[in-house]
């Protein structure tokens, strides 16, 4: 029982981190059909700047805020310099965002050095609680909590505010939104920056969770986020949460029971979805 509980908490925590990454990806894709391969780079920058700010200020909250700001700034730069020149051209977009991913992760090595850096958990989040004989690690519960809060906030914005309405409408039919006189490009810029901020937040939260940050972590996590986006359905925000939890839990159980299959299980999930429901499990629009 305790074991299952622990594995579940583990899986949920990982799932929430993947969700933060996939949420931005899926909305960016839904709005402009841009598949941002540089998203993992933004994630890694979030992780490194989180560690950096924690090192100089000693405050975990400031480090997370710093990471989010880094994400917003990088998101702005990415959209303006990298995505904008190749709007509407899928092949070029895919190629150029991957190139930017390369530059982002190499820049990390220039700025922070090529070696991996240890990341510390703040005192008030380290340690664990014991509830009825089950040991729960505080930091993992904290990640799950943050994930739920972010989901609630974004869901509120999407469902209850005007900009959310525009975003949802844009995901379903971009041309119609434009025809109604709304500058979809500007909306897209905001969504892109918000997505970058979420990716950076995920990075900053990931750093103490894994204990180290390294430049290649961006690509590793981006692959999981892509799998989640495919399973959840491109453009579906709730889908990305459910798929991320699915991937997180599957990974966590498999890592314990059948370790050799832990990565393959996500690929198998993705392949099954691609065969039977290529538009994704919770799709917002046709693939």
């Amino acid at each position, binding site marked *: 029982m305790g074991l299952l509980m622990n594995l579940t908490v583990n899986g949920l925590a990982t799932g929430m981190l993947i969700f933060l990454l996939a949420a931005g990806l899926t909305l960016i894709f839904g709005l402009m059909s841009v598949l941002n*391969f540089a998203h993992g780079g933004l994630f890694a920058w979030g992780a490194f700047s989180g560690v950096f700010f924690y090192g100089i200020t000693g405050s975990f909250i400031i480090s997370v805020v710093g990471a989010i700001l880094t994400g917003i700034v990088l998101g702005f730069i990415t959209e303006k310099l990298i995505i904008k020149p190749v709007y*509407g051209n*899928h*092949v*070029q977009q*895919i*190629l150029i965002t991957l*190139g930017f991913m390369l530059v982002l992760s*190499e820049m990390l090595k*220039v700025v922070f050095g090529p070696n991996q850096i240890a990341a510390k958990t703040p005192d008030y989040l380290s340690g664990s609680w014991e509830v009825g004989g089950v040991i729960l690690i505080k930091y993992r519960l904290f990640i799950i909590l943050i994930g739920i809060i972010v989901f609630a906030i974004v869901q509120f914005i999407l469902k209850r505010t005007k900009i959310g309405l525009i975003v949802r409408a844009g995901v379903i039919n971009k041309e119609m939104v434009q025809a109604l006189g709304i500058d979809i490009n500007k909306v897209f810029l905001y969504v892109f920056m918000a997505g970058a901020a979420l990716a950076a937040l995920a990075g900053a939260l990931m750093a103490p969770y894994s204990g180290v940050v390294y430049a290649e972590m961006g690509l590793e996590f981006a692959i999981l986020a892509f799998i989640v986006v495919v399973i959840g359905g491109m453009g579906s925000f709730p889908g990305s949460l459910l798929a991320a939890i699915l991937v997180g839990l599957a990974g966590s159980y498999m890592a314990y029971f059948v370790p050799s299959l832990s990565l393959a299980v996500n690929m198998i999930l993705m392949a099954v979805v691609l065969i039977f429901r290529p538009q994704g499990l919770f799709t917002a629009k046709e693939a």
Partner: protein
Amino acid sequence: MISKLQGKNFWLIILAAVLAAFPFFSDSRTMTILLTQIFIFAILAMSYDILLGYTGIVSFGHAMFFGVGAYTTAVILDRMEPTLGMFILSVGAGMLIAGILSFIAGLLTLRLKSHFYAMFTLALSGLFLVAAEKWRTVTNGNDGFTFRAPELFQDRTMFYLAALGCLVLVYLILSRFVASPMGRVLIAVRENEQRTASLGYKTLHYKVTASVVAGVFASLAGSLYSVSLRFVNTSVMTMDITLDALLMTIIGGVGTLIGPILGATVIEFAQHYLSGLARDYPIFERWIIFFGIVYILAVIFFPQGIVGWFRQIRAKRLGKREAAIRAKQPVLKAKAEENG
């Protein structure tokens, strides 16, 4: 036939002959090894261009096919006798496995938007990289293992000639392939998939075939690569290999076969000299940043690569309408939103 020989092919034959004679006139070991490397990566980049340049499909998993070839050859030569026959057998086995893999990847994702193939191959090659690291009994993980090359290839010059021979052979096969009716349909798919489909072509079949052809020749390049090093480790499966193929194709010129060869030459020479510079100037250790920036700029401003650039210059100089038409090389063009 004779008139054809006087054109481009004539110069290519001369070039191949000069390259074949090179090791007998020069005894620069470094240069022989560097050129061998260029031949191998030119094969990889050409195979990549079948997908990217001719069919308009982006793959981020080319390293997987390269790695499959490299490991198949290395494992077979290591476990069996390192003879020439075994080498040929291992190349065939690698190509077969890569073909099946690319067939499955293509079948699963190519009926969807172009993003899916890119994502799926990226994820699948990630899986293969982890598998290569974890399956230590066969691959010995990140440490890799050394093996004996066939006796014939112990001699650098012989291997140089073999790699050159493979390059010429692959070039001939692929240029026949892209000029065939099959290849023409692939170009049509690149230009406008919906229209091709409405003309009655089953575009999925053609795209899957392109995927298989690309995978098979990438595996051949991998086999040659591992024999050239007589060593294999997980680096053959990493993203770097895919990026190399991408850079070579884009910088050389997409949608041509000469382009990737040129690109491989430029990138390999640049890598060689920049990593030499890194000894004096540490900033060059991160030379990949320069490549990344050049690559981004190339995608935005220079999407036709070196070959496209030359064609433009020629078109301008001739000022002829005919040459201008020939220079039109609308690759990397947006494929209109497929299926909405």
